[in-house]
């Protein structure tokens, strides 16, 4: 340990791994969600509890379908980055890596499932 230089000790730790890419991704997706989320709440909300035909009809229209698709995709990208920070704070080693991989899979899986559903409803 004492033979390592300061530079060598810092390499591979913290933001030395990926620079500010993670922070920048969060900033961009945050700005996007700032617009998407309120629009999503007021387009999706009224459909909860509606009958099936009305829901199919509603998401056949471009605006509700696009808002839903964009919100799901951007929110899941934002979530996968956000949950990664939490995992990194509270776990380490192999557990940390496996949890991050698992949550990336969950995020992409939900995004794909949501997109598939929107496309199927819309077309």
């Amino acid at each position, binding site marked *: *340990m*004492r033979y390592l*230089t*300061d530079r060598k*000790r810092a390499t591979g730790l913290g933001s030395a791994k990926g620079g500010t890419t993670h922070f920048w991704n969060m*900033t961009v997706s*945050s*700005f996007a*969600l*700032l617009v998407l*989320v*309120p629009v999503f*709440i*007021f387009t*999706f*909300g*009224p459909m*909860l*509890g509606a009958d*099936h*035909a009305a*829901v*199919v009809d509603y*998401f056949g229209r471009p605006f509700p379908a696009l808002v*839903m698709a964009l919100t*799901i995709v951007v*929110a*899941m990208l934002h*979530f996968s980055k*956000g*949950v990664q920070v*939490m995992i990194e704070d509270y776990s380490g080693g192999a557990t940390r890596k496996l949890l991050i991989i698992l949550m990336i899979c*969950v995020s992409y899986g*939900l995004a794909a*499932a*949501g997109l*598939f*559903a*929107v496309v*199927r*409803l819309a077309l």
Partner: protein
Amino acid sequence: MADVNRGNRPLSPHLTIYRPQMTSMSSIFVRVTGNGLIVGAVLVVWWLLAAATSAEAYAVADAVITSVIGKIVMILSLWALWYHLLGGLRHLYWDTTGRGLDVAVAERLGIYMIIGSLGLTVVTVLLI
């Protein structure tokens, strides 16, 4: 080298020793709400997939989501969504302007986040 013992210093006591403060608690709740929202996300995607599958599948998903427990989860998710959004807004304000970081302002913004998220939740529930 001046700091041979760098990897072996005592750590600060951190979370266990501080009394809760507006700044720490409002920040911790941004994390809690953000990560907790995965529950709402799963429910919404399930509801959508069911709607895309068949009227029968949709009836099941919609019944679950509009049941008493479903409603509680959705309203909590709605509050979490507004709170996390306002917390994100505070973060973007800090990050992109470099302002608002002194304790008094940060604490005031925390109070705005709590009141704002509760107010927006009530307004949303009334409107929808």
